[in-house]
C-alpha cells in the first residue's frame, strides 16, 4: 500500500500527468478553434450542414486507437503526432453539436429578432449562440472526456502521458505503478466530465432554463 502511494510522489508520475494534461488541453483547444468556425460557416446551408454533421458522425465512429495508429506511419512517434491524432478525435463531437445546436434555434425567434432590427451579426452573437450554447458545451464536454481518455493511448506512439505508467506497470508486472496510473487517468476523466458539466450549466442562459421548465419537454 505504501509503495502505491509513493508512486504519486514520484517525479515521473508528475511529469507524465503534466504531459497528459498538456496533450489533452492543446488537442481540445485546437479542436474548438477548428470545429466552431467550421460549424459557423456551414450551419446556414442545409447541404453543407448535412455534410459537416455526417462527416462528424463518421469521424466519431473511427476508433481512437485507429486514428493514433494511422498518424504513426505518416508522422512517426512522439508528442506532436499524438497531438495531431488527439485533435482529429476532438473535432467531430464539437462539430456535430455546434451544427445541430445552431440549426435547432427556433426560426420564429430569429424572425422576431430581425423584426426588431437586429443585424445578422447581432442575431448570431446575442440570439443564436446563447441559445445554442448548452448544446455546444455538451459537445465540448464529450470531446474533452474522449480526449483525456484517448491521451492514455498516446503512450503507444511515444506521446507520453499517464498511459506510460500503465504500460510500464504491465510490462514490469508492477501493480503499484499500474494501479496508480490507471486510477489517476480515471480520476482525470471523471474530473473532466464533472467540471465540464458544471461549465455547461453555467453557460445555459437563465431565460432558457425558465422556458425549459415551462415547456417541460424532455430534451431529446
Amino acid at each position, binding site marked *: 500500500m505504501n509503495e502505491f502511494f509513493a508512486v504519486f510522489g514520484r517525479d515521473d508520475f508528475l511529469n507524465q500527468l503534466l504531459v497528459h494534461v498538456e496533450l489533452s488541453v492543446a488537442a481540445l483547444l485546437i479542436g474548438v478553434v477548428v470545429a466552431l468556425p467550421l460549424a459557423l460557416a456551414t450551419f446556414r446551408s442545409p447541404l453543407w450542414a448535412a455534410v459537416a454533421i455526417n462527416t462528424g458522425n463518421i469521424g466519431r465512429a473511427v476508433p481512437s486507437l485507429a*486514428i493514433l495508429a494511422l498518424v504513426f506511419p505518416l508522422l512517426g512517434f512522439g508528442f506532436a503526432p499524438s497531438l495531431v491524432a488527439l485533435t482529429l478525435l476532438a473535432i467531430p463531437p464539437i462539430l456535430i453539436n455546434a451544427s445541430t445546436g445552431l440549426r435547432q434555434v427556433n426560426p420564429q425567434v430569429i424572425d422576431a429578432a430581425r423584426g426588431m432590427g437586429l443585424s445578422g451579426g447581432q442575431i448570431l452573437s446575442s440570439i443564436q449562440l446563447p441559445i445554442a450554447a448548452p448544446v455546444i458545451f455538451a459537445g465540448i464536454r464529450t470531446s474533452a472526456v474522449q480526449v483525456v481518455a484517448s491521451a492514455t493511448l498516446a503512450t503507444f*506512439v511515444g506521446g507520453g502521458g499517464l498511459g506510460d505508467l500503465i504500460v510500464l506497470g504491465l510490462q514490469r508486472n508492477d501493480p503499484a505503478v499500474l494501479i496508480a496510473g490507471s486510477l489517476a487517468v480515471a480520476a482525470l476523466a471523471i474530473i473532466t466530465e464533472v467540471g465540464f458539466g458544471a461549465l455547461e450549466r453555467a453557460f445555459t442562459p437563465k431565460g432558457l432554463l425558465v422556458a425549459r421548465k415551462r415547456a417541460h419537454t424532455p430534451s431529446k
Partner: protein
Amino acid sequence: MSSFKAGLVVLQSDLGPKTLDWKWISNNLSDEIIPAVIGHVYLSFVSVAIALAISLPTGVLVSRYRKAYPPVTFVTGLLFSVPSLAAFALLVTVPGIGLGPRAVIIALVAYSLLVLIRNVVAGMDSVAEETKDAARGMGLTPRQILFRVELPLALPVIVAGVRIATVTIIGIATIGAYISGGGLGELIFTGISRNFPTRVIVGAVLATLMAITADLALLWLERLLRPWARVRRA
C-alpha cells in the same frame, strides 16, 4: 515542453509516409488478417450480447421502479468514464481474470451498460399511456402488455442504443489486444512494435471500416423498425 521538441525531431526524421506492402497483405490474408477480423467480430458480438442480456431486464425494472434509475445511471456512468486502457490494466490485476479475452469482454460489457440501459428506459418511456390503457382494456395481462406492446414499440430506441454501444465497443476492442484479447488491435500493436506500418494501417483501416459498417447497418435496422416515422416524413 521538451517532449514537444522531441516530437518535432521525430517528425523531421526519415519516418515519413511509406507505401503499403501489398505483398505482405496477400501473403498473410488467410492466416493473420482474416482471423483477426473474426476475432474482433467475436469479441464485439459476445460483449454486446452479454451487455444486452443484462441491460434489457435492468432497464425494464428501472423504468418501473423509478427510484432505482439515478443510482443505476450513476454507477454505469462511472464505469463508462474510466479510460479503457486503465480499465483493462486494472482488470488484469484481479485474481482469476488475468490477461486474455475474458478481461476484455468484461470491460466492454461494463462500457455498454450506460448507453443500453438509458435507451431501454427511454424506449419504455416513449410508449404512450393511452396505448397501454387500450391494451389493458383489451384484456391483456401485464406480461402480455410488456412483450406484445411495450417492448415492440420501444425497440427502435433500444436498437439506437445498441448501435452506439456496438460502435464504441468495436473501437475499444482494438485496445484489448494489448492485454492479449486478440482481434484487429493485434495487427496495430505488432505493427507499431516491429515498426511495420502495413500491419498498423491494415488493422486500423479494417477496425474503422467495421465500426462504420456496423453504424450504418444498425441505423438501417433502426429505420426499418420505425415504419411510422417514415410515413410521417413522406
